[in-house]
């Protein structure tokens, strides 16, 4: 008989199949090695397709106020993480100040380019939470007119009316946004944008009041937002997003 009785019983506990080793007190504990289940990190192909989106908040704002815009965006999906984006839109403003009776009107296209970064840890999710940055610019003409200007001391009067004043303006945006899957490739989402002017071109007789794509220049910076209808275009996307699992191995391999 063995001087040392080794009683080794292995039980199945739950789904983990962890071995339970019962030893006598006099037994020496031999080192064991636990090998964790190996799951190979899934691979994401670099190119994940394109995303088309359209903003529906801008037209609603235009219906409720003096200005607004409509825009669409084409976004490239790289590894579900990086999203280079191009946004093109059309902004319009027709405003008359109640107190000064000065009118400003413009309508022109605008352009933005930038990149979004998906900050969710799980890049395989169809929902996205992202931060990003944009460079925007618009080259446009505006009309401005107001009451006649009268010299209170020397006398004389002249109308204040200018048409087709040219301006080329640019700005930067910091973007925070959310995008959730609604059905198949159709998503909806919103973004909040902090905008900072870079260059505002204007003639000597008037400063630019509204910049298409930026908004009003009443403050040195402004906030904006979009509510997007988004459609994922997966054509050209390689089907490499496989998550091959190696068989789970449990070992009591002794050294």
């Amino acid at each position, binding site marked *: 008989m063995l001087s040392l009785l080794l009683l080794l019983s292995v039980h199945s506990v739950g789904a983990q199949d962890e071995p339970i080793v019962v030893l006598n007190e006099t037994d020496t504990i031999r080192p064991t090695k636990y090998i964790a289940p190996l799951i190979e990190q899934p691979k994401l192909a670099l190119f994940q397709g394109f995303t088309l989106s359209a903003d529906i908040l801008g037209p609603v704002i235009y219906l409720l106020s003096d200005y607004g815009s409509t825009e669409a965006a084409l976004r490239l999906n790289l590894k579900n993480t990086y999203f280079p984006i191009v946004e093109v839109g059309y902004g319009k403003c027709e*405003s*008359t*100040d109640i*107190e*000064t009776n*000065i*009118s*400003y009107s413009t309508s022109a296209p605008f352009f933005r380019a930038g990149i979004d970064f998906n*900050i969710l840890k799980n890049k395989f999710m169809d929902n996205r939470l992202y*931060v990003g940055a944009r460079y925007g610019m618009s080259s446009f003409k505006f009309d*401005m007119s*107001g*009451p006649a*200007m009268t*010299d209170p*001391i*020397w*006398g*004389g009067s*002249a109308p*204040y009316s200018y048409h087709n004043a040219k301006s080329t303006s640019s700005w930067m945006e*910091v973007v*925070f946004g959310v995008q959730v899957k609604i059905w198949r490739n159709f998503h909806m989402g919103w973004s909040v944008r*902090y905008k900072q002017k870079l260059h505002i071109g204007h003639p*000597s*007789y*008037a*400063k630019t*009041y509204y910049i298409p794509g930026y908004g009003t*220049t*009443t*403050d*040195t*910076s402004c*906030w904006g937002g979009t509510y997007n209808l988004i459609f994922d275009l997966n054509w050209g996307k390689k089907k490499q997003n496989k998550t091959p699992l190696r068989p789970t191995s449990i070992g009591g391999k002794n050294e």
Partner: protein
Amino acid sequence: MKRLLIILSLVALVACSANNCPLENTVTCNYYFYDREGVAVKYGETFSVTTLLPGYKTVYIYRKLGYTTITTDRPDTTYINAGYAETVSTARRDTLLVNKAKDRTMIQVPMSYFNKADTLVFTYSSISRPDTIIVEHDSYPHVELPECGTHFYHNLRSIRVTDAAIDHAEIVNPLVNNEKKENVKIYLNGVAE
């Protein structure tokens, strides 16, 4: 997520920004006084500034031997009763811009919207001759924002002065707007003690 909240908070702080309407609503050309050596001075003489306006007006001139000639816009019978001889004449219309100023380091004077040059006449309490300053300028309307209203801005082109109390004058900032910067240096005769 905590990092994201910090970033958003910082963005919100940066977003606090000011309205672009100018604090000063009036546009004036700002004249600062210096002595002949260029030292800023507080001008102790009592002086008034009038500017010539377009057109002419009727003036009544009263003269009496041994007395100062008096010019008024309206007839005054008290001078006739006192032995003055009345002469009716015409003179350029004018208006008072600065009235009996004293101990001033600077004056703010409006500019005309549609004239190519403004003529300012400085009259002094203790100097018999007045000084005339002629400022040539270009003017253009300007709207900062529709809510701020319209203003006329000016670009100073040249300045000429007479020499009763003024040595010379110099344009230091030709753009006249509502930023209230120093536009013209007036160098007075004499040196500050």
